[in-house]
């Protein structure tokens, strides 16, 4: 095991502009999670650099990275990752505990209001639906008004109607100017972004801007591929047509 070097990411050169809504797709092991962790300053690249808002973050120390995560980045996870024993409000307060400003509940109240859950502030995650939990998680992610929101399969554990509600929240946040990077398996989620990136084997193989006309086309193409895959389950070699985004294949990243 130890003597083979695995490049989770290989030669990725990506620039995301402020206010952009980017979706990243790709099969398990394609490197999208690694890319996400790097962008979220949870991981450091073994080589290469990462800049965030003009600041070279790949050179920062642990302490500084923690501050970047706290102030500039918000995370949303597939499994929500809420702390079950405390209320929605307390969950949203967590990032504020690590902010070196005087502690106030006000930002948490505002964030919960933004996701429409202020009335449920005192409820615990176990008393809420999956969609509500994810909205609490989004409130937690935006409580410190980050410039970048990273969402890792945010709709992966939700049904399509709830997923749509979550996407509405993302659209609303995007309208407020937050940059959003969303990792997903689902084409109909991915096409809602302004820019779609597809990854395979640690490389970006597809990077397209999506406009409204484009969107329908991509969706129908994806559905065709999906149907085709059902008819011929073992197809899909290296000569697959571009943008073969398989729905719900493999495990989550």
């Amino acid at each position: 095991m130890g003597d083979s070097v695995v490049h989770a990411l290989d030669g990725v050169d990506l620039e995301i502009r402020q206010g952009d809504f980017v979706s990243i797709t790709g099969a398990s092991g394609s490197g999208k999670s690694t890319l996400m962790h790097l962008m979220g300053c949870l991981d450091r690249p073994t080589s290469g650099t990462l800049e965030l808002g003009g600041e070279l973050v790949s050179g920062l120390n642990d302490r500084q990275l923690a501050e970047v995560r706290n102030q500039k980045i918000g995370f949303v996870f597939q499994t929500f990752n809420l702390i079950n024993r405390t209320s929605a409000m307390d969950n949203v307060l967590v990032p504020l505990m690590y902010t070196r400003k005087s502690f106030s509940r006000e930002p948490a109240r505002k964030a919960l209001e933004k996701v429409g859950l202020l009335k449920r502030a005192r409820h615990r995650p176990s008393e809420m639906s999956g969609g509500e939990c994810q909205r609490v998680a989004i409130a937690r992610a935006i409580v410190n008004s980050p410039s970048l929101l990273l969402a890792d399969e945010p709709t992966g554990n939700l049904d399509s109607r709830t997923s749509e509600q979550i996407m509405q929240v993302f659209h609303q946040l995007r309208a407020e100017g937050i940059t959003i990077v969303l990792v997903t398996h689902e084409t109909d989620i991915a096409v809602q972004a302004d820019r779609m990136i597809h990854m395979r084997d640690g490389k970006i193989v597809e990077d397209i801007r999506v406009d409204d006309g484009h969107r329908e086309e991509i969706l129908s193409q994806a559905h065709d591929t999906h149907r085709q895959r059902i008819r011929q389950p073992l197809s899909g070699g290296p000569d697959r047509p571009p943008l073969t985004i398989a729905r719900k294949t493999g495990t989550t990243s």
Partner: protein
Amino acid sequence: MFHLRIIITALRGLRQNLLRSLLATIGVVIGVGAVVAAVSVLEGAQRDILTRFESLGADQVMVFNGSERRQHRVQQVQSLLPDDAREIEHENNDLVKATAAQYQGGGQIKYFERNAVAPVLGTTEAYADINSYQVVEGRFITRQDVAGSSMVCVLGHKVAGELFGELPAVDKTVKINGKSFSVVGVMEERGTLGFTEVDNQVVIPLTTAMGRMFGQRYLTMLVVQCVDPRKLPSCIERVKKTLRASHRIRAGDEDDFTVFTQEQMKQQFGQIAQIFAIVLYSIAGISIVVGAIGIMNIMLVSVTERTREIGVRIAVGARRFDILKQFLTEAGIISLLGGSLGVVCGWAMANFLSEFTQVLQTHTPRSIIYIALFMAGVVGIISGIYPAIRAARLDPVQALRYE
């Protein structure tokens, strides 16, 4: 506010697993409880015994029969004679104020159908003065009583009460072991004098006790009162010199008597108490170590269980130091709660013991409460540091994936 939030968070975590948290504290509760209870008992006993020593008076030299080593065995030697007391007083009248030779026996005291079992003390007229022990009715035994081996007795407060109730006792005749004695006085209520419960004692003239009553040659002990407590050391020397001379002990041979002062008794007792303390502290220390291991175990489980939570906290901006602080706070709180509970339990245990046994007196010094809590805090930090470091070192990416 920030620290308060950490404490609130920690308390919530503990409440979530209330039973587990309580089980984790039990080691510390028992450890601290044991320390507090042990110290309370020891301290109470020490106070009790020290007040008994104090009641002996700082100006007294107590002389007991000696012991000698014979073929690796320590044997009691009978050596003190009534004449020794007179000799000591006579030869050292510049230093010795008074002496009271004592012979202690036991007896059954009867007044018609009423009777009491009590120690019978044969002594001389100086006994009351040396101990500042007063009569409340009648008089104490006199020089004439001793010289004439009179059949008179002075009753302790409790004995008088048992035999006569509220009625006057003086001039009544009681029987001690079948022999008739005339009651000449009743003593004040005093409780204990040294290790004797004098309220339950009957005093008769020394000569009567040794001759007519018990037929003994040797004294039980001899009390010498020095003119000045500051001259006690030289007084001791002189008492020893006189006794060695009258017992004809050759130079180089050991004394056939033992001399004690209140101070020496206190010191000797202090040494014994110290040994007890060491043993008790060691036992308590072991249970605290066990408690610390218990807390460490629970903390390790807690860190593993909350791996994802730790990942999230790091993702939203917690520094490693913040995570460390959080888990250390939790361990500290468990430990301090255990410590507080232990103090209460130990104190309750000590009170129960003194209540239950009736003879054991306990005293919980305030300092031991602070020491116990401080110890609990240290235990918390020591047992929490390793789990907390483990939590702080977690890789956030791995932690977020942890199932």
